[in-house]
């Protein structure tokens, strides 16, 4: 009996050692390898409709020599940064109010209510804004009937509309990350500062704000990563005047089946995200010191 128990214990020892491996193998096969394949293909060329291992920088040269491709990347960075900044500016006061003004027993409910539209169908989210801001959309109809405007405002199909779509979604996300950070700040810090004679403004700028930077940084980073890789929002709300990098990538894949060029653009997109990651990681560390 004793030996049997020991036997199972040893088998258990083996089993727990291998429990993590299926997930690791899966991640390796379907995440790491595809990214490596993408990197490799970015140095290949498409000759006569077939992928050929040419090992050349020609695709990268082509990317940087075509103004509209570099421009697409620049546009993406500009739109994403604008959307991220505006989302922080809207989300921070909201998270602050939720954490410090709404009674504690209501906080959970109000928070859930605030982020519920998070689960609106992703493909339809941008479309919903079209219903609001298009030429015969609800805003124009209301403002015309109130006599505020004679001509419908042209709001849809522009960079502003793309930013609006992003801001709407990411305000919810950042409210969540900033709120989670704010409620962790110990109330005793505020009391101590107040006892020592700090004004409410001083307390906010010297205590609350610095301590909540990690929540802002995490939310801003997630926002940046998701927004810069998003195809749907600029495609539906952005209109035809400018192309963002995800649209350029999909165009290469769906129209031309040009995988090498799509890979180059994806690599450039990843480079931007990695740079942003290191910038924000540095910032996070600085705040912790």
């Amino acid at each position, binding site marked *: 009996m004793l030996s049997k128990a020991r036997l199972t214990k040893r088998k258990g020892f083996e089993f727990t050692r291998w429990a993590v491996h299926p997930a690791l193998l899966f991640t390796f096969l*379907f995440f790491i*390898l*595809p990214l490596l*394949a993408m990197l490799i293909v970015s140095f290949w060329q498409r000759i006569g409709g077939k992928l050929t291992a040419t090992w050349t920088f020609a695709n990268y040269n082509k990317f940087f020599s075509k103004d509209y491709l570099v421009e697409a990347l620049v546009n993406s960075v500009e739109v994403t940064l604008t959307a991220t900044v505006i989302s922080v500016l809207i989300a921070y006061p909201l998270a602050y109010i939720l954490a410090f003004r709404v009674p504690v027993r209501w906080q959970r409910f109000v928070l859930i209510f605030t982020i519920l539209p998070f*689960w609106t*169908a992703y493909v339809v989210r941008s479309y919903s804004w079209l219903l609001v801001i298009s030429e015969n959309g*609800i805003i124009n109809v209301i403002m015309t009937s109130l006599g505020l405007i004679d001509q419908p405002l042209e709001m849809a199909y522009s960079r502003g509309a793309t930013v609006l779509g992003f801001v709407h979604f990411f305000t*919810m996300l950042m409210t969540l990350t900033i709120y989670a950070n704010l409620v962790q700040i110990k109330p005793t810090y505020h009391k101590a500062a107040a006892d020592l004679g700090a004004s409410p403004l001083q307390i906010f700028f010297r205590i609350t704000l610095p301590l909540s930077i990690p929540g802002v940084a995490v939310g801003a980073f997630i926002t940046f990563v998701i927004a810069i890789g998003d195809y749907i929002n600029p495609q539906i709300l952005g209109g035809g005047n400018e192309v963002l990098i995800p649209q350029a990538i999909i165009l290469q894949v769906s129209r031309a089946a040009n995988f090498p060029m799509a890979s180059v653009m994806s690599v450039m997109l*990843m480079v931007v*995200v990695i740079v942003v990651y290191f910038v924000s990681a540095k910032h996070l560390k600085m705040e912790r010191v």
Partner: protein
Amino acid sequence: MRTWVRNTPAAIYLLVVLAFIYLPVVVLVLFSFQDGPLPVPPFNGPSLHWYEKMFGNERLIASLINSVVVAILSAVVTTFLGFLAAYGMARRTPRFAGGIRFSLMAPLTVSYLIIGIGLLITLNIVGISKSLFAVGIGHVVINLPLCFAIIYSQFGDHTRNIDDAARDLGASDFQTLLHVIAHVMKPSLFASFCLSATLSWDEFIIAFLLSRFDVTLPVIIFEMLRSGLTPEVNAAGTLVFAISVTTVIAAAITVSALTSGRKK
């Protein structure tokens, strides 16, 4: 009274932002009941015309079934892999624990678009055609980090003790995992399953890139969008939203019921 006055600006701000957040949702849902060809004012209705049209659309219903199948199967695989990995990390800290955690969480920092393009290129090189199965694999990749993190965060000393106790009483590893640990971890397993299923259900770009004929619901809705504004899209969007919200709320209620039952 004084606190009420002090909080007035805060309350106004809260209401204004909530109005901003809910404006497109309300418009979407309201005009799915439009009685007329366009989902814009004036509102004539309510009418279920566009829901009838939607449920009569065979391609849409087929894609809806595909979406449900992919969501459930990919969520099962994701939760299973995430649970095993979390157990392996929590039961005994393996060598290279930091590296393993980093590898498992890494897909979170890469755009879905890039993950999709990478998988598409891999399929192309290996010579496998696009399929619903490939979409499912893509969905496991994007959801595994979240599920692993959720389940791992719920492991602790108490699970380690229960694990030891079960083994001392003669349970095999498999019995311990299935009857003891999985039972204790039920709330987080369920939460991870529901989160993974709703994210897969709503995912577009990977399904768009990796599916061929057997597309999912978001891909069909995207195709419908090309024909401009129509209340049928509103109806489809409302349906997707309703199913997601129901799943999320059901999950939240179940999880809190399971965990509060445990405390007693």
